[in-house]
């Protein structure tokens, strides 16, 4: 459970909001709030993770500072979300990675990238790594297929387990019943809301981000990022099927399904995060949790680096740079997977949990 002070502030703010209710037109948080008369720790943790940070309610609020009520919903919720990611992280001994998160992400990325690259050079020798490899199985001449699979899938699967443990604990604490988490219609609704980023549209006109103007910029950049990531994942999945089911080895043709998916997705995870970073630069920080900006920036850069190295690998796969690029790309992807449960990626998990809960509540 997040810190008492953070929970207390969120409850204080929700009690004021619940007596006002002017913001009910903005997003799911307010109808969910309306259903409650008092707010438990779990209630505010749920509402905080349901909040997409569109900031509409902040700029419309008659009680923001300097008013003595000092209401700042997006900030109170962002702080609580940050603590959610930390406190539901599993195993608990890694919670510390959320303090100074950017520093840790940078360090882990650097270490893993160097380790993989140096490792490949040492094991395979510079001649192999810097040689030109073409045709079927070209990548695997630099790094054997099994090595890639084990290196990448181990942290990926571990992240999946860590997130499931965190989500189950979170679900229990926000008052969800065990069976409801997997209820198909609620899941479909939640995935739909997440897929469309419905609540990043605020009341339908977009976020008040990066300033008090209504804009779809953040929603679109975030959609590019998320769908880019999903397409990259789809590319890998299709390639896995190609490899194991059909016995077709990479690299694949430029117009093959994995390459098309990966290219479009790669562009998404570069352009989307760049858009988000640019908006962040000029954003009004009053409605935000400035203590955790580093976590956001680190994650966005990790995505950008993943995308750029992946695209570079595609472009230069028939040159002598391929071997080094493959090693660097693998190192960065590895770092991304390793740090998934201990960085911004956690938001997707708890946001989805909150959306599932909201899908249940909406039907009541």
């Amino acid at each position: 459970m997040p810190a008492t002070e953070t929970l207390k502030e969120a409850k204080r703010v929700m009690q004021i909001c619940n007596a006002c209710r002017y913001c009910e037109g903005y997003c799911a948080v307010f109808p969910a709030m309306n259903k409650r008369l008092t707010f438990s720790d779990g209630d505010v943790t749920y509402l905080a993770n349901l909040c997409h940070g569109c900031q509409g309610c902040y700029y419309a609020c008659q009680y923001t500072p300097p008013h003595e009520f000092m209401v700042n919903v997006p900030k109170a919720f962002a702080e609580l979300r940050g603590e959610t990611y930390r406190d539901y992280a599993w195993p608990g001994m890694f919670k510390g990675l959320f303090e100074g998160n950017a520093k840790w992400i940078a360090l882990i990325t650097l270490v893993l990238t160097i380790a993989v690259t140096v490792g490949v050079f040492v094991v395979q020798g510079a001649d192999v790594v810097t040689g030109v490899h073409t045709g079927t199985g070209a990548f695997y001449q630099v790094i054997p297929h099994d090595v890639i699979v084990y290196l990448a899938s181990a942290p990926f699967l571990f992240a999946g387990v860590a997130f499931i443990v965190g989500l189950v604990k979170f679900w229990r604490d926000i008052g969800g019943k065990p069976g409801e988490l997997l209820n198909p219609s609620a899941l479909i609704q939640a995935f739909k809301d997440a897929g469309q980023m419905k609540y990043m549209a605020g009341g339908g006109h977009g976020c008040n981000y990066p300033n008090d103007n209504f804009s779809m910029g953040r929603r679109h950049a975030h959609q590019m990022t998320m769908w880019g990531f999903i397409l990259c994942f789809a590319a890998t999945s299709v390639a896995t099927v190609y490899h194991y089911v059909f016995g077709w080895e990479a690299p694949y043709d430029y117009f093959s399904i994995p390459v098309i998916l990966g290219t479009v997705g790669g562009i998404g995870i570069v352009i989307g995060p760049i858009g988000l970073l640019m908006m962040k630069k000029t954003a009004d920080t009053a409605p935000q949790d400035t203590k955790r900006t580093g976590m956001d920036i680190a994650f966005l850069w990790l995505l950008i680096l993943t995308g750029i190295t992946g695209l570079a690998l595609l472009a230069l796969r028939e040159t002598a740079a391929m071997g080094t690029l493959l090693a660097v790309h693998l190192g960065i992807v590895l770092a991304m997977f390793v740090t998934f449960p201990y960085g911004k990626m956690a938001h997707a998990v708890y946001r989805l949990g909150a959306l599932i809960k909201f899908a249940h509540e909406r039907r009541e």
Partner: protein
Amino acid sequence: MSAALTARARGASVLMIESANKDLRGGNSRHVRNIRYSHNAATDYVTGRYDADEYFKDLMRVTDGNTNEDLMRFMIDASDDCVDWMLSQGIKFQPPLSGTLGLARTNAFFLGGGKGMMNAYFKAAEKAGIDIVYEAEVEKIEMDGARFTAAMVRQGGELHRVEARTVVLASGGFEANIEWLKEGWGEIADNFLVRGSPMNTGKVLRSMLDNGAKPIGAPDQCHAVAIDGRAPKFDGGISTRIDCVIFSVVVNKNGERFYDEGEDIWPKRYAIWGRLVAKQPDQVAYAVIDSKSMGLFMPTVYEPFQSDTLSGLAEQLGVDAETMEKTIEDFNSAVIPGEFNATEPDGCHTEGVEPKKSNWARKIDTPPYYGYPVRMGITFTYLGLEVNRQAQVFMNDGKPAENIWAAGEIMAGNILGQGYAGGTGMAIGNVFGRIAGEEAARHARN
């Protein structure tokens, strides 16, 4: 805002003088939630028809005929395009939702409420090239006979003389000016809470009355409701309201009841309780409920006082415990059991106690007991400037001033002599603001 935008659109150069800073700009409109306007069919923002005749009937009822009927009619007819006009200025509305206080058919709700509306207005004004000065207070209106010549504006400690060909006065009422309130209410005004902007001190109105403008409305006429006694002195807005009165026994500080708490459904009685409380000693009262009623009304911004005994609660509230216990004992024994229904007058009443409680009377007997202190919260005042259909300000000789128009709360008393129906203030402001802007621009350009 509507006057400035309209005048600018007609080609006038416009200076807007705002006494608040950017955070608190927009006067009491910052606290509003919706606009009541006439419409013949449902739209994206309202659930059904609310025609001019129905609107007229409603306002005649709440004002008890204390109005300028011709002007009221005119305002209502003209209100039919308010929402379209506001949309054209970039103001956003929300679809009618469940929590809209039973006004979903008659009123269109601003997305996020009045501050959201004001943000859109100010953006539109900046875009249109209207000059805006903040933290600048008009202290005096200078006139030469029936002609406006200049406004004396204080900004940053300095007094400036601002000349203009025409002026639109939209400076609100005087509810934040306790000394002025005392003229109508006496010393008890010290204990009133002001729900809206602390900037509404009525300096412009006072100056105009000193200049010989014709007043309309009585100095003690205002919209006032019962709000939590712990609310801020100013700017508490909507969230401080207390909705539990109909389920309560309401006592004064001596522990005595003073009015039928269950007279009618709450929205209809919302506005009388401010005045009722203002007549009690120290202008304070206490709404007492037991655990049966918790959750039946809108949650409150402050936690109620709570105790397992009535005497314990009385002590916390600072009410004479012995009398309060006796009052509630008498009340309880007078309750005639019936079928309780929280959502409509249920006929559960008392017999043999004065004053009686006509509905929702249930024994206060199930601890824990809860109590809310209640004070009068003044929303806006009605004493203002008399205007005609063109929003022109009348002078005491019965002739309109040459180049002065008024809009909003400063002239709302023309239509609202007393009483109120939610969202009417916005309609008055918008309709007369646009007319004032139009007329002022035309006059200035001639």
